């Protein structure tokens, strides 16, 4: 199992920890060609962090559902051990199911596919690749001492 230190150095992870911070350095290190200057909604520092589960509970290239401040959240782990958090509600069906989709990439952009109608949502910013007008919310996420935490307002 991967050590926590590797997590905290991940570009995606740092972005989530410091949504207001500069992304220049992060972009340079990010192996993904996807834009990492993400729209995570309100640019605020999380007021709290919710512990979700030990990292090893999330299988690489799969997601788990968690309850964060009353909201269902999909916590996704990619093959290169980056972690993302998106709202779990599939906007096209209204079902709380994104965490049960298949994780992969479309044109190099890491995505999760809705298991209902198969639209793809970019892990980095929640936008739907099939419909530019639709996006799901994303959340700050970090791993502290082997435990995944999701930030909330």
């Amino acid at each position, binding site marked *: 199992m991967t050590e926590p230190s590797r997590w905290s150095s991940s570009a995606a992870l740092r972005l989530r920890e410091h949504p207001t911070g500069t992304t220049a350095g992060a972009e340079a290190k990010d192996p993904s060609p996807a834009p990492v200057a993400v*729209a995570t*909604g*309100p640019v605020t520092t999380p007021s709290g962090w*919710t*512990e*979700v*589960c030990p990292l090893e*509970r999330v*299988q*690489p*290239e*799969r997601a*788990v*559902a*968690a*309850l964060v*401040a009353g*909201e*269902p959240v999909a*916590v996704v782990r*990619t*093959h290169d051990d980056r972690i993302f958090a998106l*709202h779990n*509600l599939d*906007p*096209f*069906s*209204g*079902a*709380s*199911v994104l965490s*049960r*989709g*298949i*994780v*992969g*990439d*479309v*044109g*190099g952009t*890491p*995505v999760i*596919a809705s*298991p*209902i109608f*198969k639209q*793809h949502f970019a892990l980095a910013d929640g*936008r739907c690749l099939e*419909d*530019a*007008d*639709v*996006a*799901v*919310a994303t*959340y700050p996420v970090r791993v502290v001492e082997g435990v995944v935490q999701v930030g*909330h*307002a």
Partner: protein
Amino acid sequence: MTAEPRTRSAAEPDRSARTVVVVGHGMVGHRFVESLRRRDTDGAYRVVLLAEESRPAYDRVALSSYLGKASEEELALADEDFLADDLVDLHLDDRAVDVDRSARVVTTAGGRRVPYDELVLATGSVPFVPPVPGRELDDVFVYRTLDDLDALRSATEAATARAGAGRHAGVVVGGGLLGLEAADALRTLGLVPHVVEMAPRLMPVQVDEGGGALLRRLVGDLGLRVHTGVSTSEIRRDHRGGLTVFLSDGTELDASVVVFSAGIRPADALARDIGLPVAERGGVLVDGRCRTQDEHVWAIGEVAAVDGKTYGLVAPGYAMAEVVADRLTGGGSRFTEADMSTKLKLLGVDVASFGDAHATAGGALEVRLDDPVAGTYSKLVVTDDGRTLLGGVLVGDASNYETLRGFLGEALPGDPMALIAPAGEGAVGVGIDALPDGAQICSCNAVTKGALVEAIASGEASTVPELKACTRAGTTCGSCVPTLGKVLASCGVEVSTALCEHFTQSRAELYEIVMATGLTTFSQIVGEYGTGRGCDVCKPAVASMLATLAGGHVLDGEQAVLQDTNDHFLANMQRNGTYSIVPRLPGGEVSGEGLIVIGEIARDFGLYTKITGGQRIDMFGARVEQLPAIWRRLVDAGFESGHAYGKALRTVKSCVGTDWCRYGVQDSVSLAVALELRYRGLRSPHKLKSGVSGCARECAEARSKDFGVIATEHGWNLYVGGNGGFTPRHAELIASDLDTTTLVRTIDRFLMFYVRTADRLQRTAPWIEGLEGGLDHLREVIMEDSLGICPSLDEQMARHVSSYADEWAAVLDDPEKLARFTSFVNAPGTPDPSVEFVDHRGHRVPAGMRDGQPTEVPELGFGPRVIAGPRLPVHDSASRSPEEVGV
């Protein structure tokens, strides 16, 4: 489908409709009615078809295949839509015997009187039997109808039984196209065929001397005894009960049966009786409109003499059928010159003839290439300047036929010799590109290259099946189907077979790679043969391949992450994120005790229950964390996974069977149960459904399944390639009267060949259609092992059968696999609050979201554009404001 004569009488027809009476339901009569019904979109005509034979129209061109593997059903031309058409009344076994042209009424042998507005004669032709003494003896036949073939078959069997073991001979009088077909039929029946032809060569109409010589040699190699330049003097019954045929050169042949196939004559007796003018050599005289002297009487096909000339091929007959259908619906088309080109495979030997094959035009030159070693003969007939193609003969190899025929009457792109030279020796070859637009690609249906190109350019067709559907090209004899593919390619239509952006290979190619390399993980496969990290297209596809190649549980290790949500949770996700559960009920059988268990589970978990189309019970509305508890109870009661969630075998539906049914002839339920247990869990490119019916009444609807079995008196008939759904298809007969062992072995191979070579999400019907050679090819592969892969297919299926284990029982015993069945990883006791149910018709169904049901989030999920709501932290990026995001 030996349909009964249809008895819907004159009670129903629309009074305003005009009546067309068609005399004769052969290939041309059938084509006429099909064409008329297609053109007559307003239903202005009602059609009454009077057929002499006891069967609806069938493919007479493929007659000889009837004695081999083709069934009557396969040869049938009239499909169920046709037979069910309210505007078509078909009367079988009721020949028209008289017509009162002034009153416009047809009288039939059965005494039926049918008034008409328009009368179409499509009586075809009758075999010509020369006045040979003895032609009236028993065991002497003609070769025209399925009844003739049935009689020929039983006479052969009787003669063989009478005379005991050893090979017996049969004599065919006539060495033309039909005579060779008949000889092939005799060979199929196990006789040594002798062919007697008066002309100095076989097929004198189609081929020249050089081609005839080669043809004689090639069919001789196949066991035909050919006698040319002689006639038949007499046939006598010998003292042992057989026949002796005396030839004009003194030869005497002992034979069990004799078949006359010495040409045909137009069946114009009715026309003569009612005073219509006929041509000098027979045939009803018609003009270019195919109209007789009587403006309400038309004639088409072999009975018609257009401007005095009759045609004995199906393609000109079809053209006439189209002309009359067009005329009756207000068109102005005319029958012009007919294409008398012929291409056929006789006893495996290619023979083709086109245009002016005998160089009768003044100054015509012949270019010949005779290769006795390769067994090919080619001749082109060109104008005296060598530039324009007039005709040709090909024997032994006719692969250039479609292309060459396209150049008829056109300037050749090069030296004529280069066109027929074998490939690789400076041959230029002729590409589709060089063909003029007017070149006819499908001669049966008169479809030109231009028409095909237009269908492609307009976007109507981008695949061979689409091209067939919208132009009808390749739908009759099928010989031009490979050319259709070339036309598509020449138009730049390249249908990518790549699985997805991560794999350039097709599913079949990737399957072969995985099979050959023995790779067992997606990471290895995508790393070595693909790019990126995969997606929701290639991952489940590879998971399916690994399931049939590597085996193991579908949720083992990395395989688990590849699975679609249904396979990942071993249940079917419904629109509100809950799942449905289908335990296996093999063959649709369930005990009262089993029903009680299912009922108690449904009651205790509040599940909505529904009977499925596949004779099972589906329980809806289980939340993900409830699945293990539900399955614990099901497994404890002896149920196992029904794989309703997988691209896998679903059910084998069965009828009531011989245990109960008064009509069943075989034990369909036992077979259905055995098949379902044999193939349960088999992962495949798409779902697989099956059915077994215990008699021809077909109560299990087996022909709407991927593989369907119907009992016969002697065993089982196997049908493949059926489905319901978006494009319903009837399964086609692949083999008849199989014993159970052969049946199961054939299904084993069918399924494994499908698993290996189909595209992702391709049901069996389009898969078979896409195979080059279609159903015949499939039959050769799985029944005759033409590819030499059957041992490997058998072995792979044996491995599947022996390694099967219930997926749900395995999950219940594995804490690691069970861990995924949780609502929230950090709040496993909290059910998903978004899942709510309401009462609908007294049942429990998901709340909200559709159909005006009570809903908590009214505008959610209907349209493509989603707006934010208080409970739905989804935002429209164009008008986003901080308050809208619910974090």
